[in-house]
């Protein structure tokens, strides 16, 4: 199959792309999606490590996967709340520009 470092490089790459998206884009939707990308990158790394340490007794056989599941749950909840906030913002100010937000609320 493939080696762990390669997996980790992939994770790092995805993470960095996510950071770029969060910082550079103005569209709130895009930012939220980049956030999801970062979370997924982390998930990859977690599952990889979990697989490597599957036989050690500390976190059980599926420790990494279970952790990943939790991250998944957190990501879902965060996406839900973030999007409802986005809706509120849209209703109020009719914009989804991140930079406009602070100017409007003065």
């Amino acid at each position, binding site marked *: 199959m493939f080696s762990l470092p390669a997996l980790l490089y992939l994770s790092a790459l995805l993470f960095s792309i996510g*950071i770029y998206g*969060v*910082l550079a884009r*103005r569209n709130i939707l895009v*930012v939220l999606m980049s956030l999801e990308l970062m979370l997924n990158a982390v998930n990859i790394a977690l599952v990889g490590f979990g697989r490597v340490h599957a036989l050690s007794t500390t976190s059980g056989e599926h420790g990494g996967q279970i952790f990943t599941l939790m991250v998944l749950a957190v990501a879902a909840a965060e996406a839900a709340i973030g999007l409802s906030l986005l809706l509120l913002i849209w209703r109020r100010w009719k914009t989804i520009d*991140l*930079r406009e*937000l*602070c100017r409007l*609320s*003065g």
Partner: protein
Amino acid sequence: MDSNLLWIPLFPFLGFLLNGILGKRLGNRAVSVIASVAPLLAFMVSFGAWRKIIDPASSGALHWDGFPWIWLDGILEIPFALHFDGLSAVMCLVITGVGSLIHLYSIGYMKGDPGYHRYFAYLNLFTTFMLLLVLGDNLLLLFIGWEGVGLCSYLLIGFWFQEDENCAAGKKAFIVNRVGDLAFLLGMFLCLIYFGTLEMSALTNADNIAQVSMETTGFMADPETGTGGMAVITAIAILLFIGATGKSAQIPLYVWLPDAMAGPTPVSALIHAATMVTSGVYLCCRLMPLFEAAPMALSIVAVVGACTALLAALIAFTQNDIKKVLAYSTVSQLGYMFFAIGVGAFSAAFFHVVTHAFFKALLFLGSGAVIHAMHHEQDMRKMGGLRKQLPFTHLTFLIGTFAIAGVPPLAGFFSKDEILFAGYKAGIMDGNSLATMFWYISVATAGMTAFYMMRCVAMTFWGDSNVDSKLEGKVHEPGGWIGFALFVLAIASALGGFLNVPEFLGGHAILGHFTGLHVSHANMTPEELDILHAGEWTSMFISLAIAGAGLLVGYLFYRNGSGLPAAFRSSAPGAFLGRLSENKFYVDEIYAFLIVRPFEAISQLMHTLIDQVLIDRLLVGGSALLVRGFGELTRRMQTGFIPGYLLTFGCGALVLIYILLNQLAKGGAQ
């Protein structure tokens, strides 16, 4: 073990609590009853205790071990213990007896005063502390009583606090006392270090004293060899004596006593004549063995005492306020007592304490009656000829005057005579030239005492009346309790001398033996005894002569209210001395210049420098500025600019990653 002893100070304390807390509601009648009954009860308990210790079967003293009070195992153990021996017994009886009389007198004197209950509460509190002072078994308890009477003195001097000068007088008394207390404390510390304890029995134990006498301090030691410093015993004695000068108004801490006349007259009688000011003398008598082991300290005591007596008498010459005359007279008589201690006659000093309590209280109460009758006029120049209107007061006041001048067989004669003889013996008979000089001073002072007291009586009661015309018809004899107190004290002043009639006159020196202060003549050969007695007769005649001379001169000069011959008064030395005396030798002014003004300057400096600049501006204002500045700095973070926040997150993440990787690289935590 006699826990009944506790009741002696406890009764007045309960009186204080009742009157202080509930006094306003109880009404003047109840307050008077409570306040007067309390010291009377204490007197009865003291009397009972006294009866117990004169019983030959008893050990001569009563003791109550009390309860452990300050208890640091092995380091400092001070129980709250009371001790009642001959010395304490006499003091208790005097305090409660004279105190009760003054309480009764006050019922008449303070009638109608709005602070009635407060006055009696304070008086009772004072009695409590004074009793604690004389009953305490260790120096610390004595010191508590010491401080407590100082406090009550302050409270009572400034009783009519609506007037600024009364408050100032109260403050002066307390602060000057405090200076003495500092020395007292230092003495106590030395006792603790070298004796290891503060108990009276330990401090007067001959073996302990002998042991401590070997020690020397570094004070005044030879800088090269480090030896020859002042003995510890001497240091302790001197320090304790300085404390006594504060309380008992000697040089240099007597300045509060004349000002203390701003308080009600019964207060002056009780506190500044009969009891509080004698606590210094009591201290020295209580620690007699300790003082006797420090001859240099005793010399200092004698010198200070004699000089004080002289100075005060000189000032009393020209005072026009009747209470001020008596105040300086008190200072002078206290000087006598310390002089007696200084030449080793503790018994004579204590005897004078007792007789002085009687006749000085009598004089003060008499002056109070005069002041009360004159509607609070105190200037003698506005009196005169009051003999007709106040015959009873006049009689008692005259008895008091003769007592203080030393006219036999009144009380003052015996006690003063003993003091003068002690000086005579120490000086002329034992060949000590320093003592001789001070004996001359004492004799002269005795004459002066007679003189100025005569002046006082004459200006007040004899001659033509200078009374303000408005008051003429309203001057009447005080009745009731005032008269009663005067009567009892007059009797005491007349007969009190017989408490301690010396042997050469056929007496047995009862008081001296009872208090254990008497120096025994048992081991003297008959020839020595004869010489002693001859000396006593000589001294007695000298003192009689000088007293008589003083009285006569005073009578001649003042019987018509004319005063000193005009020629003397207008001559240059006469005028100069007169001015010096009238202005109290400018001592207060000197103190103000040397001590008070620098203190005030320093306080002002502290105020501007530390209070205003440092604390207000730098610390308080500075910390406010700091917080505000920091707030303004951090306010920049709250932009509301979301991408900015995201950037912060990103940077935070960066930092975290970096740190974690560092940890990993070092093979550390995961």
